[in-house]
């Protein structure tokens, strides 16, 4: 049986003592695994991470990290984990100094530190910015610094709370590849994101959270298979769409975005003719229409709605 690095059992967390923003969450993560937590804003991802990283006390349930209970061994756990916070965090200093000081805080030996700084400057494309003060960086550059900094020290488990927000597609890909490479060498990663294809690309297993609960869990192909008989009708129209009337006509999962309509359903064959007739009676012109296999995105939308 593989070594369990994260064990969360029936975790319930509350900020105000009344509503549980994490509500009976249980999952395990094995050594070397990349585990993705997905969910809408406010689903409870960050609260779960804050609990696992010893910032928040456990209200109900049990959380063990690297075999140790977070309520008893917080400091021992912290010495073996890395955390990239969702919020911005950096020192009031240049990029290079941020990395150096962080290395000093982690007691990284001088020679090792030097080599690692050069490595992350290269991987995260921060070399040209090494002398720039952190607060003068662009949003994406700050995020890169924050992720890069965490790879300065050794760790057994890394928490990444939406680390790719604001990164351009090229940078995003190279950051994901770097994380994957580290995981192949034994690093365990807990990763949160809103971007499904990212989770699809990176994560060995995915849990989808909604309102404090895990509503689906599995590998991305598990999830697609489970909800895989779903198909998506995608229509691009010109003309105003009345969301309410559309919704009442097609109670399936209808998503309207400007002049695009998406309907996720198991029986698109029945819906499609009705939809075309509906649009015709409303004088809405169809520019483009397609029926697609559901993507992980669709799975997400389906399970959280």
């Amino acid at each position, binding site marked *: 049986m593989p070594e369990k690095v994260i064990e969360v059992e029936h975790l319930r967390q509350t900020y105000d003592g009344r509503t549980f923003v994490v509500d009976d969450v249980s999952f395990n993560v094995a050594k070397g695994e990349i585990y993705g937590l997905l969910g809408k804003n406010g689903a409870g991802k960050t609260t779960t991470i804050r609990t696992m*990283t010893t910032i928040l006390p456990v209200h109900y349930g049990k959380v063990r990290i690297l075999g140790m209970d977070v309520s008893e061994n917080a400091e021992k756990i912290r010495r073996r984990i890395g955390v990239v916070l969702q919020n911005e965090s950096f*020192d009031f*200093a240049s990029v290079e100094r941020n990395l150096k000081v962080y290395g000093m805080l*982690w*007691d990284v030996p001088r020679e090792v530190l030097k080599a690692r700084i050069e490595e992350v400057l290269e991987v995260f494309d921060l070399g040209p910015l090494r002398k720039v003060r952190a607060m003068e960086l662009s949003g994406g550059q700050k995020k890169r610094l924050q992720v890069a900094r965490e790879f300065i020290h050794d760790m057994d488990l890394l928490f990444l709370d939406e680390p790719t927000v604001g990164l351009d597609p090229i940078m995003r890909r190279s950051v994901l590849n770097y994380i994957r490479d580290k995981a192949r060498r034994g690093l365990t990663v807990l990763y949160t994101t809103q971007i499904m294809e990212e989770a699809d690309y990176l994560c060995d297993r995915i849990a989808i959270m909604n309102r404090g609960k895990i509503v689906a869990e599995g590998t991305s192909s598990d999830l697609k298979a489970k909800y895989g008989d779903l198909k998506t009708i995608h229509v691009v129209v010109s003309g105003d769409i009345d969301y309410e009337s559309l919704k009442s006509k097609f109670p399936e999962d209808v998503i309207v975005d400007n002049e695009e309509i998406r309907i996720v359903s198991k029986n698109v064959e029945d819906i499609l003719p009705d939809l075309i007739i509906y649009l015709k009676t409303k004088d809405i012109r169809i520019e483009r229409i397609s029926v697609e296999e559901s993507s992980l995105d669709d799975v997400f939308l389906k399970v959280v709605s």
Partner: protein
Amino acid sequence: MMPPSLRLTARNLIINTDPGTLLFLIGLPSFYLIVLGLMFQALIPNVVFDGRSISYAQFLSPGVVAMQPFIAGSIGGSMLWSDRRWGMFEQLLVGPFHRIDYLLGIIYVSMIFSVGGALLMFLVSYLLTGFVVHYLVNILLIIVVLLVSSILFTSLFLVLSVFIRTIQTYNTVTMFIFFILDFASSAFYPINGRTPLGLRIVSYANPLTYIVNSVRDMMFARLTGSDLVYVGVVVILSALFFVFAALSYRKAKI
């Protein structure tokens, strides 16, 4: 391997030390010493202290030395603010430290600043009045008092930082406390039978009075039993404030 609290201290020295605040640390008390010391000379030709007649500037110099831990403490408190502002507070809380290490990291920096500031005050005072502390042992005693007082004031300001919601309020409160503690103490004038009773009570409830009194006695090489009491009060208050700071900081909002 460096202990975690010292690593955090080194970080605070490298990152959280702003030349502007340091200037304040040294500037304001120097200003007191130079301006007040020289201006009041016209009004107060000399002060009788321990049967000797000394100049007002000489009387004032222990006062400005004793202010250093107070100013250093307020700078320490503001480090918590800037760490919160740049998101580093939460980041350090998930770092490889005990929670108390973060507090110690700030207290140690305040100690360094207050001793450094005090040495500078000695220098300014020497240039101004030609006054020197004669005995090495007295200088060492003064340093001990300054170190202990740094714990007191840094803890006080850390508690304030935890409970006050905005940096503006924090700064206003700091200035207010600064004013009260400085002027309702024995820093600027002797507290004796001619001091109005109300002010005398405030002065004796003010930790700065005990610090100033003991530093003054040490500078003028006139140690008595009451200095033991002064130092005792400072030590007890420091211990209390430290415990209070450690407790309230556990509740600190991130």
